[in-house]
């Protein structure tokens, strides 16, 4: 058998395999697979998209306005689709989606340092020397990930901002739960929002047929070694290469081919890194990825500090809102129209909020005492504003929510038991959230409450 014929063969067989998968309803991928599973009576798999706001967004200028108070600043409040819930005038798209979103206005935490706060908010635990806690994405990837998925179970889109995040995400869960990072440096409206998995494509001078030849030769070269050593390490090596080869062949099921989407939809998301990142997140979830993180960091030179608006807060928050609003509201609509919203949880959060008091430079500083996050979609009872920070926003006056409770609520909405234990290398059991942490039941749909 010649190498060339082997590859013609491969493509043919691959094609047959895919046809068969479709015909029998076996889980091949994406929403087709999900529909098939739903038809068989199994609950459709859930997923989470985390919209991560590095730097700490100002709640007072987004979801918890203090109109009429001197802390309020210049932004006006607008009505939303949820009666009685009002948000910033710079989030008009989200105002329309409010029936499916719930604001937590009473989050209260204690850490005001970016790195440590981000760690606490994403792991649910205070950083410790002895235990490296995994972040939400790794925890969800472990619980909801499909081992046979061709795509990774945790994808992180342009969130490599080391000032605001430290430590390895996966913690003691180990590297198989580490995120696959998608680079996305260009924010140019012209660039095809260069989001890609690094080195997914072979070098340009290598023809497709040669890539296949190389994969084939690798099979031949490793045969003898694999026969001599039937060890876990050799098996892992083989399975990793097979996964990577599948990813290369399928080019990640074309998840990254954003130009397959209608131009109007891409415009609606916003032709920028975050907007296109949200679109990519939807495409990844559609293809079975259970956790995708999209970060909204500096969109241009003026917002290079992301949400860390110690000075000139209002101009920057306005600019960031103008990126956030179309992307996120289009994501909500897009998910709903595809029947994915009831199984996809969207979480908006940063590491802390910002001071209600405006400082001398027209900025707002770090403020963990009373701030906001937003949840919507899977398992979440939308249309609410939960908790209250009083007329000045200086403290929580009603229904305080602590950081670990937020993680517990997210888990519950996703159908994950927040008290489930994972084990460190030392064999120490660590529950997903600290023992005794209660999810905020009022935020959950009846269905997700009953599954607890």
């Amino acid at each position: 058998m010649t190498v060339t014929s082997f590859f013609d063969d491969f493509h043919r067989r691959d094609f047959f395999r895919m046809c068969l998968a479709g015909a029998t309803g076996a889980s091949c991928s994406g929403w087709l697979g999900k529909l098939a599973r739903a038809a068989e009576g199994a609950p459709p798999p859930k997923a989470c998209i985390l919209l991560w706001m590095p730097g700490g967004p100002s709640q007072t200028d987004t979801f918890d306005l203090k109109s009429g108070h001197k802390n309020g600043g210049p932004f006006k409040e607008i009505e939303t689709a949820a009666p009685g819930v009002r948000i910033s005038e710079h989030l008009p798209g989200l105002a329309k989606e409010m029936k499916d979103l719930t604001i937590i206005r009473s989050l209260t935490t204690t850490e005001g340092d970016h790195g440590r706060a981000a760690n606490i908010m994403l792991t649910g635990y205070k950083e410790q020397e002895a235990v490296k806690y995994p972040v939400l994405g790794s925890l969800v990837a472990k619980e909801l990930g499909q081992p046979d998925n061709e795509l990774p179970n945790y994808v992180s889109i342009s969130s490599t901002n080391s000032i605001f995040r430290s430590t390895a995400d996966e913690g003691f869960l180990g590297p198989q739960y580490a995120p696959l990072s998608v680079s996305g440096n260009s924010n140019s409206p012209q660039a095809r929002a260069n989001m890609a998995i690094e080195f997914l494509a072979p070098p340009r001078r290598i023809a497709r047929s040669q890539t296949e030849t190389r994969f084939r030769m690798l099979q031949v070269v490793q045969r003898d070694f694999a026969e001599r050593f039937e060890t876990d390490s050799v098996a892992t090596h083989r399975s990793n290469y097979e996964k990577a080869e599948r990813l290369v062949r399928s080019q990640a099921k074309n998840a990254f081919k954003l130009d397959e989407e209608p131009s109007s939809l891409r415009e609606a998301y916003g032709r920028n890194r975050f907007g296109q990142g949200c679109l990519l997140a939807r495409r990844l979830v559609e293809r079975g990825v259970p956790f995708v993180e999209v970060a909204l960091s500096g969109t241009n030179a003026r917002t290079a500090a992301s949400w860390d608006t110690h000075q000139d807060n209002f101009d920057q928050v306005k600019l960031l809102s103008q990126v956030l609003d179309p992307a996120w509201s289009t994501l909500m609509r897009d998910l709903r129209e595809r029947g994915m919203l009831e199984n996809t949880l969207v979480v908006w959060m940063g590491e802390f909020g910002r001071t209600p008091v405006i400082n001398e430079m027209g900025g707002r500083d770090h403020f963990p005492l009373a701030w906001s996050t937003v949840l919507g979609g899977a398992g979440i009872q939308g249309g609410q504003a939960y908790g209250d920070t009083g007329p000045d926003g200086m403290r929580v006056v009603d229904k305080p929510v602590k950081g670990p409770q937020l993680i517990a609520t997210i888990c519950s909405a996703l159908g994950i038991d927040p008290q489930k234990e994972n084990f460190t290398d030392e064999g120490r059991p660590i529950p997903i959230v600290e023992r005794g942490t209660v999810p905020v039941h009022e935020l959950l749909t009846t269905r997700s409450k009953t599954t607890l």
Partner: protein
Amino acid sequence: MNVPRASLVLTFVLINLCIRVDADDVSSSTADPQQRLSSWLDSRFEARWKSNQVDPPAIVDDAAFLRRVYLDLCGTIPSVSQARDFLANRTVNKREQVIDQLLADPRSSRHLARVWRRMMVPGNGPETTVATQLLEPWLVSQFAANTHYNELARQVLVTSPDGSMMRLNPGQDGENPSASAGAYAMVVGQTPDSMAGASTRFFLGVSLNCAKCHDHPFAKWKQQDFWGMAAFFANPEATGMGRIRSDKGREYAAVFLGGEKATIRPDQRGTEVLVNWMTSRDNLNFAATAVNRIWQHLYGRGAVSEIDDLDRVPAEERSFFLDDLGRSFATVDYDLRWLMASLCKSRTYQREAASKAGSSPAEVITQRPLKTLLPEQVFDALEQALNLPIGKADDSPRMNGTRVQMVAKLNESTTNHPDEFRSGIPQVLLLMHGSMISNATDLETSRTLRAVVEAPFFDPQEKIETLYLATLTRKPRSQELQSMLEFVREQPELQQQKQAYADIFWALLNSPEFVLSP
């Protein structure tokens, strides 16, 4: 060899004793203490295999031995010519010669420093950067001078953490004069409790950290044990000499792990007293933990299963060979290079890796697993295989940032267990499609490939053999050679034939055998 004569004699006596105890068949006529230790170790292993009713694995051939010993002692693979020379060498004791030669190679101190830095500061957190920049260079200088292990421990513990001997100035680059033993304290967090937890784990193989906040759930350690050790590192001005106040406000006095109360004279530092106790020959855990780490480095698996939980290892497991090897190490005044040479010269070290995991712990402990190359080893081995330039002026991958990037990426999926392989998809894609491999397998840019493909004096078989030697330090087996020759001959045109060699080269570099050392 800079071992005092007296200790050599002692070793001699001690090893003789050990041999008498359980292996009378080992010849006692040989006078070389290294050889005695090797033989003693071999007899222990061979007895174990016999009682397990399995045949000892075969001794590896010269090519496999050379690759193994290069990777273990120098962190890289031999060049094609080094491999050819060694294979052609007819000297009887050429293996012993190459072991001694490699241990004296400057690359050896750099590699061993990396290995020990990883053991001292496990994981891949932000502290790794400081460890790499400040602790590792200091370790290089210590391995180059063959500082004995007890002295190394003394410097690490006594230099810190009160700051008086620390010259840490991370702003400088180049030779990095700020590298020092004190970097260890800086990395683990310069508090008495973090130093106590970290150094007890690293030097004594006991994980005490759980006992910091509560009595240990499944070991005998109480909070008293933890804080008793922390008291050695306390600042005397706060609570008086050898005393510490815990984070819950309780006061504890300095107590050696295991219960003996320490006396610290006014002219002493707590850490000095601690090190004297730790490195004394009566404290077997110190030597046993050291040899356990060395054995894990060389063999891929510790002499007992739990390296950092030596206190939880059953006595019969320790008595296989760990404790006696530890005693021998203490007798030669903790001479690391001497010990590594002795171990590498043993038959046990030179046996084949296990083809599959054994069924019982007693069987597993004798098995050499495949060892996963460390990130730096992957780069260095690639550099060797690809015959890359190494100078700054050549814009070499070593100097232009490629190495740093590759090591960082591979580190993301590296564990502390040499027998574990966890490389993820990003790492695989880097090796498949990254610039280093791409350039190396491109006929236009690759040095090795061009040298092989264009060589007029090589026939196809020799070309393939050279590619195998360059990457896997061995010649292809006959079946492999046939497959490769067939593949080349199937190509209709000369250019495609050349391309076929490039594809073979790519496959060899991406093969499990390249990153998993048998």
